[in-house]
């Protein structure tokens, strides 16, 4: 009896290990922690992109309008890919698109907007990347849908057809 338990136990253990690792093969190896939805937006001081006037986040996100905060940079290639979706959304009137220019060179960023058009209602600067951290962001591009000073949806990485549709659904 005793001799039989051991091989069964061994096979059982190894099959569990095999199963776990086999499952793990299909998962992405980049772990992004779960995001608690409906987080309050941070409060920060920054400068407006064109005028360089000082501006506080209270003056940007006002009332119960929908705001789409998009963190972008001219050096970020996926930002170029998602640009057309932002242009699409900028035509919607009930949603204001706010740009956060992340660690960028002003002239390059300006050229980016001249060449690809400007979907943003307002752009502010984040030269050292600390405001992105205040948002709980990882890098560029990243997009937040905001209403009533709360983050309703957080999108890591570039926008796509499906996400565009989701945003439109949420802001109906």
């Amino acid at each position, binding site marked *: 009896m005793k001799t039989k338990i051991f091989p069964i136990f061994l096979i059982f253990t190894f099959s569990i290990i095999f199963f776990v690792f086999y499952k793990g093969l299909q998962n992405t*190896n*980049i*772990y*992004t*922690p*779960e*995001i*608690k939805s409906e987080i309050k937006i941070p409060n920060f001081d920054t400068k407006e992109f064109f005028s360089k006037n000082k501006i506080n986040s209270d003056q940007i996100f006002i009332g119960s309008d929908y705001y789409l905060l998009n963190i972008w940079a001219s050096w970020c290639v996926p930002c170029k890919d998602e640009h057309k979706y932002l242009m699409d959304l900028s035509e919607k009137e009930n949603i204001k698109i706010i740009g956060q220019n992340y*660690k960028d060179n002003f002239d390059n960023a300006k050229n980016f907007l001249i060449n690809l058009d400007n979907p943003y209602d307002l752009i502010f600067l984040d030269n*050292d*990347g*600390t405001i*992105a*951290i*205040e*948002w*709980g962001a*990882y*890098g560029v591009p990243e997009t937040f849908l905001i209403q009533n000073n709360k983050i309703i949806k957080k999108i890591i990485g570039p926008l796509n057809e499906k996400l565009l549709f989701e945003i439109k659904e949420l802001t109906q």
Partner: protein
Amino acid sequence: MNILKFLISGILLIYCFSSDLKAKNLEIEITKNLRCLICQGQSVYDSDSEFANSLKILVEKKLNEGLNEKQIYVYLKDKYGDWILYDPGFSKNTYFLWLLPILMFIFGGAIILRKVILKKKKL
């Protein structure tokens, strides 16, 4: 009088320098306990990614604002979750993580103890 002036300014200089060094050390200590979320397997201190560099600046800023080490951890945990800390606190999400080694230790100890007792009995 002049010597006294020199002495005082010297002491002040040393004091400033040492306190500055202390702050820097604390900053390093904190960033070593933070996981770089986009370059996984590295701490924020070791990494040179955009994310890690911003985080280093932010930690320095928060220290200057008067936050202590614990407050900074709480602040970052709220934004990025437990995963950003290399040393997560004891909570209902992590009790399994903390208790598992102890359980394994006790379990292993019990097996060894049993074997020893059995052997003694045989003898």
